[in-house]
């Protein structure tokens, strides 16, 4: 049997749930489970149904982009206290990248179908979740833009010409 009380405490300790209303916390905890991934395990893969989102408790997760005919590229790593996975909020609810455990990763996994159903029935819950997700999304978007600026403005060094 799922230990809801224990999960509620674990959820409350995560920065994502800081100062969350206890009723909301209880509702979300009802869609929540603990999960452990080992180094190299995929948490999800591009194209699969986005049926969860994740709060990292411990460990490092690599977000990877699959490159046709090439090795996947890690574009971001996330660590303790961070959240990831918003494809569950947006139709068609499929993952747009891979997520892989870089070491032993412990997460709180939130069941997206369960959450979407509860959000449909309780708009205040939906508002609360969006309110917490949006700043994280905005910060990641801003950071990606700055990375583009950096890559665009940083001169590429000229390689030394071979002698002879």
């Amino acid at each position, binding site marked *: 049997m799922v230990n809801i009380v224990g999960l509620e405490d674990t959820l409350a300790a995560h920065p994502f749930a800081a100062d969350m209303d206890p009723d909301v916390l209880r509702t979300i905890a009802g869609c929540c489970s603990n999960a452990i991934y080992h180094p190299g395990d995929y948490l999800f893969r591009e194209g699969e149904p986005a049926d969860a989102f994740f709060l990292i408790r411990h460990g490092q997760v690599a977000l990877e982009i699959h490159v046709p005919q090439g090795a996947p*590229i890690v574009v971001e790593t996330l660590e303790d206290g961070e959240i990831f996975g918003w494809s569950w909020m947006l139709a068609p609810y499929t993952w747009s990248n891979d997520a892989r455990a870089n070491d032993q990763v412990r997460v709180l996994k939130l069941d997206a179908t369960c959450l979407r159903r509860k959000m449909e029935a309780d708009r205040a819950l939906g508002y609360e979740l969006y309110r917490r997700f949006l700043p994280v999304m905005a910060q990641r978007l801003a950071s990606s833009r700055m990375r583009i600026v950096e890559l665009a403005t940083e001169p590429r060094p000229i390689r*030394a010409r071979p002698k002879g």
Partner: protein
Amino acid sequence: MDAMPAPVRHADPMVPRPFRITRVIREIDGVFTWRLAAVDGAPFDFRPGQFNMVTQFGVGEIPVSISGDCRRPETLVHTIRAVGPVTEAMQGLRAGAIVGIRGPFGRPWPIDAAIGSDVIFVTSTIGLAPLRPLILEVLHRRQDFGKVVICYGTRGIHDIMFEEDLHAWRARFDTNVHLTVHSAPSGYRGRVGGVAAAIHAARIDGPATVAFVCRSEALTRQAVNTLGERGVTPDRVWVTLERNMKCGIGLCGHCQFGPSFMCKDGPVYRFDEIEALYSVREF
């Protein structure tokens, strides 16, 4: 307190002193470090953050920060990224070649402003070169400071400069190094992301922290904003500006903005002193 040697100004600041390249170290593709010794054997005293005007005879003269240890004045160190005609020609020089050096010029990093505080260094790519003498000096006087955190970002895992130093600093119990790259091959265990994420991950006590930032100007403001989110106010953040320079001694006006000459009033500034410039378009 154990003082650094005071820089000595040589006779005519417009006349280059000949220095011999004693060693060339390839940092990454297109970036190299020179170790140099004065042909006359005299030591070269400087303060962290200062720069020299470096001449390749018959090619040109450019400003380059000093990237060595100010406690080893017998060896001058410069790290150069080949980006254009002069720096590319310099890349072709080998040990034994003679170059001209004028300097040291410019306002150094104000290390004493950080005594008793936590210190965070924020930099990326070649920006580690001008910060390196300061990091070495802070570590030399380690007991004068609180936590020491180094946030360094590069394009990819093959673009990491001063890798040996980073390893050595990381191995110390009293220094935290947050290295981040923009992308990496699958299986890479380090941090991937922007420098902002590294600043967020750093364990610092914002209001008790002094920051030294050396990034391209396009990214300096972002670093300052991120530090602000961590509680480090702009009056505790020191940054560098880079502008075209010719004389290096406040005569020609090449580097002038408003009443300030970057070659002598800079290149190091306290961010709140120059913050307004960042809102001037095409400055």
